[in-house]
């Protein structure tokens, strides 16, 4: 069975290390904040200028001056700091954020990512995604393995305009966990009940499969 959005988010959260500063993109990456293990401490960075993002507010806590990068109302966690946009991207671009998790339209086996622009459709902008992929030490992409027509999103070469080059280390999809290295996708884990054959058939780029590919553990 392919994973639900929540299950992908749960698997993403397993990548969080104790003491990590993490930037989570809009969508599935943000959901991962709900599944941080009890025995670790992480700080979430929101690129509009908040390090130490807390939960959504209660009605009483709502404050128009307190939002996240998705423009949602938010709270500050204990130990948070707030700063301006240049400072925020100094920490991103300067490589101080340990982990970035973001969505994508396509990733290729050279670690290139396309996530912001589909020619012929309306272009809304890249927001902070280009800065994030250029700056983070470790970047994970979450997306469905194939689009709704069954076309692979893991390609030999991205076809859409790029967000960044040679920057993606790991991909967590509804079917698998893959690492990107040496010009290939390396299958690390498969979703429970999903066969290597299915993953292979939905991976257009070069896929390296070792003898035993374990199932994800939740």
């Amino acid at each position, binding site marked *: 069975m392919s994973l639900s959005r929540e299950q992908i988010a749960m698997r993403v959260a397993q990548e969080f290390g104790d003491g990590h500063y993490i930037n989570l993109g809009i969508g599935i990456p943000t959901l991962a904040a709900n599944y941080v293990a009890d025995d670790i401490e992480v700080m979430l960075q929101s690129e509009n200028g908040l390090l130490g993002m807390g939960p959504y507010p209660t009605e009483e806590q709502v404050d128009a001056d307190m939002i996240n990068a998705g*423009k949602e109302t938010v709270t500050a966690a204990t130990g948070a700091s707030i700063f301006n*946009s240049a400072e925020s991207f100094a920490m991103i671009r300067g490589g101080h954020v340990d982990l970035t998790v973001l969505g994508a339209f396509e990733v290729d086996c050279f670690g290139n990512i396309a996530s912001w622009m589909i020619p012929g459709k309306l272009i809304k*902008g890249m*927001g902070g995604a280009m*800065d994030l992929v250029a*700056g983070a030490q470790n970047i994970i992409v979450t997306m469905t393995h194939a689009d709704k027509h069954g076309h692979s999103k893991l390609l030999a070469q991205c076809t859409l305009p790029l967000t*960044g080059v040679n920057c993606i280390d790991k991909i967590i999809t509804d079917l698998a966990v893959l690492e990107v290295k040496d010009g290939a996708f390396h299958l690390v884990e498969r979703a429970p009940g999903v066969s290597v054959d299915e993953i292979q058939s939905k991976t257009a780029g070069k896929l390296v499969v070792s003898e035993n590919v374990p199932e994800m553990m939740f």
Partner: protein
Amino acid sequence: MAGFNKVVDSYEAAMVGLKDNMTVIAGGFGLCGIPEGLIAQIKKMNTKGLTVVSNNCGVDGFGLGLLLEEKQIKKMVSSYVGENALFEQQLLNGELEVELTPQGTLAEKMRAGGAGIPAFYTATGFGTPVGEGKEARKFNGRDYILEESITGDFAIVKAYKADRYGNCIYRHTAQNFNPMAATAGKITVLEVEEIVEPGELSPSEIHTPGIYVDRIIVGKFEKRIERKILSSDSNQ
């Protein structure tokens, strides 16, 4: 003699000198920390042909979205413009030009502009459409592109509290692009929630020193929320 008293008592006085075809840098992220009254004043003046530099362009009927109604904006320099149907329509009609700029590059362009640095190298955008036509250079084996800084004829800034010198502080994430915008305007106008007595703000808590500020006006803010999400919603 006004000395260091930069407080003006009308929006007309706050924005006097704004003319057609000028560049206006605006603070704010989405609808958070935007100079609502100064934007409304630009709408009232009906200044045309503006280049507006701001992370976003408001929403339909609020914030910078107001300036689209009479087609006052010629060009928008932003990182994300997806919240606005009128924007989309004018863009598709060719009535509006947009220069999409990565968010961190945009912040740094303003910061550098205000700091007298004409351009800087960044890895952001290398190998993407953003890097096309720009000088590329390798440092320590990594590829960078040259990005030019931005200054404006006007900067419109929203702060929380200021004294009459223009020393000011921002509140929570309403800070965002405002401090950079404040440094990058030939004329920087601050719209604040409250004017305090000089000395009331501790010198070490000032976010933007008054040297960057030319005019200050006390505004009334609606502070519209774009996406109100409550903790009870996220537990579903």
